[in-house]
């Protein structure tokens, strides 16, 4: 069967006006255009633009070979003051020591940072955390900046109106050496999200719903600008959740125009300008929006009024259904390629078509990751579990996204709420999102997870991952099976 069929066209898609002459200055500019153009060092004819990088975030897994490359060529890190390293992917979140390979990788990062003068937020410093959580937390992630990192979820930082895209290790080396990257200009997609978000439906459900609609290849080659009343109504945390998973739709990056919500989040953070500088920054940042007549290569409109909490059933993040739905029958998939993928996914996930999502029992619950381990996520989950108990058959884990988030959560008493309910409260790190440390699923275990990927074996060999929001994960931990949080008697989030 052909597995090369291209994604079916969307019903809700408006063919964008043809952009025959590319990005003509006479036409309205997009937010992306503005940030891009402000960072072009040089664009010789017939070559990609050389783009300046304002912030380079580094972690242990994708940097060792890049530093080796510098050493071999006798090169330096050009701007250590625009570079920040942290330890996140591999670090233990409990008392168990890292395995020898992990320890060597963490040690290599420490050595490399020392040798090349790169600031490092090491494990135990009290400043460490998931790279995409600490950038915004420190206020380093600012509107209009270019941000890169050797990690696919770099798209998170786009929530601030930064152009933030993931790179591989060769490119990490390039940025370390030159503070620039040759880049081909991506296409743009406007994702207009309209309607009021129903009670119990979160930013995570929005982005899972979006990926379900446009598909995991739907964003290839594009920077997605998320706009519309849904985005305006979301907190920065919610916007980060959405931008974070742009990569899961195949996109190069996600971006959101900054507004008062953005500025309120940033004000007073350590790396943010103060006093008169702050006012000047605000003036610059307020100009960072797309013009009303801006043109995009693609426009997708989605109304969220009918959106329900989402649960993934398969092995990629586009395989999602509403929590009140059933596991789909692969026979109903029009595209033969999607059908085959669905069949393979159901075998791996040990699920039968037609099974009610709410009849699926889970063994594990993971609340964490760069998608959903910020303070707001933990508060929302804690609200669901307060005064209740995790089902006896479930082992549930909360891993704060950073040492800072952990401290704040503890100051608010969230750790005690989780622990009283039977959750394990851990130290910061990527943890069971990708299972590089000891936090893994056992073969056959089923997990409700607030992370971003349900790929085969992602959370541990043979593990079965269902992606959900923190609220759904929390409620699922209590019931031992998926729960429709719209039916819980919770106060709506203000």
């Amino acid at each position: 069967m052909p597995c090369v069929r291209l994604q079916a066209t969307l019903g809700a898609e408006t063919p964008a006006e043809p952009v025959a002459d590319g990005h003509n200055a006479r036409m309205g500019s997009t937010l992306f255009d503005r940030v891009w153009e402000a960072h072009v060092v040089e664009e010789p004819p017939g070559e990609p633009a050389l783009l300046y990088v304002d912030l380079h975030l580094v972690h242990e897994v994708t940097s060792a070979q890049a530093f080796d490359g510098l050493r071999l060529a006798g090169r330096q890190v050009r701007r250590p003051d625009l570079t920040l390293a942290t330890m996140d992917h591999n670090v233990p979140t409990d008392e168990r020591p890292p395995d020898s390979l992990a320890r060597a990788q963490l040690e290599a990062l420490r050595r490399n940072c020392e040798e090349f003068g790169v600031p490092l937020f090491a494990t135990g410093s009290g400043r460490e955390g998931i790279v995409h959580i600490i950038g915004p937390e420190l206020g380093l992630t600012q509107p209009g900046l270019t941000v890169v990192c050797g990690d696919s979820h770099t798209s998170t930082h786009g929530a601030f109106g930064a152009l933030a895209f993931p790179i591989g290790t060769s490119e990490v080396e390039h940025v370390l050496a030159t503070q620039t990257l040759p880049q081909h200009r991506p296409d743009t997609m406007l994702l207009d999200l309209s309607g009021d978000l129903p009670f119990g439906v979160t930013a995570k459900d929005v982005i899972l719903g979006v990926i379900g609609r446009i598909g995991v290849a739907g964003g290839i080659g594009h920077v997605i600008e998320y706009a519309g009343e849904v985005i305006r109504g979301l907190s920065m945390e919610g916007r980060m959740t959405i931008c974070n998973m742009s990569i899961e739709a195949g996109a190069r990056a996600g971006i959101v125009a900054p507004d008062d919500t953005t500025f309120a989040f940033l004000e007073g953070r350590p790396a943010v300008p103060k006093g008169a500088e702050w006012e000047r920054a605000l003036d610059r940042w307020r100009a960072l929006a797309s013009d009303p007549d801006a043109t995009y290569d693609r426009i997708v409109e989605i109304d969220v009024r009918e959106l329900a909490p989402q649960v993934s059933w398969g092995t990629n993040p586009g395989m999602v259904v509403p929590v009140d739905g059933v596991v789909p029958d692969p026979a109903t998939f029009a595209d033969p390629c999607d059908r085959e993928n669905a069949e393979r996914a159901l075998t791996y996930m040990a699920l039968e078509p037609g099974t009610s999502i709410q009849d699926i029992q889970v063994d594990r619950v993971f609340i964490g990751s760069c998608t959903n381990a910020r303070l707001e996520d933990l508060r929302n989950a804690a609200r669901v579990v307060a005064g209740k108990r995790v089902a006896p058959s479930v082992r549930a884990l909360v891993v704060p996204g950073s040492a800072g988030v952990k401290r704040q959560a503890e100051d608010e008493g969230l750790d005690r709420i989780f622990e009283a309910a039977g959750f394990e409260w851990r130290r910061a790190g990527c943890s069971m999102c990708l299972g590089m440390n000891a936090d893994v699923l056992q073969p056959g275990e089923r997990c409700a997870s607030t992370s971003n990927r349900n790929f085969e074996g992602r959370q541990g060999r043979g593990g079965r991952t269902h992606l959900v929001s923190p609220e759904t994960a929390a409620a699922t931990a209590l019931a031992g099976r998926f729960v429709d949080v719209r039916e819980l008697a919770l106060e709506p989030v203000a």
Partner: protein
Amino acid sequence: MKPVRRVEGRIAVLDRADVDTDQIMPKQFIKRIDRTGYGESIFFEWAKKPDFELNRPEARGASILVVGRNFGCGSSREHAVWGLQDAGFEAVVAPSFGDIFRMNCLKIGLLPVVLPEEDVRALMNLGSGAALVVDLEEQTIGPFGFELDPYERQRLLEGLDDIALTLRREDEIAAFEAARPSPISTATL
């Protein structure tokens, strides 16, 4: 990077869509800090199954991997392309690639060839083990032509070191920095 001009070899067909880099190179192998030796780990879990497509005898020793759409989606781990190259692949052919994966390929000289789905289908129909020639100079693969950005093509043909090329623009980079001082600093945190 070694120049890439012509790949003459046999194909291996992996008729699956949306293959993510977690499948190509699982997490336990990306803890290593070396740059080589990833070849034996590619498709680690799938390869344990005797009926896995690339375990077939006719797929052995192939240098051109023919795959479904959105190949290499997900994680940015360059270890995935290091592994494929280390396992002997010199070109990967698909209707589309994950963006980061494709860029990683270009950086190390593993030739990513994007073809219309029907051409990929035609190559898949030849079956693993079929002989094929990819000519980057002519931009042909078997009977088909393919497109590649002229700059990237030239870089591959000449095996140019990207970093060295950029370092030649030191003056332009310095001028950019002088005109636009960094709004942030990680040194003072």
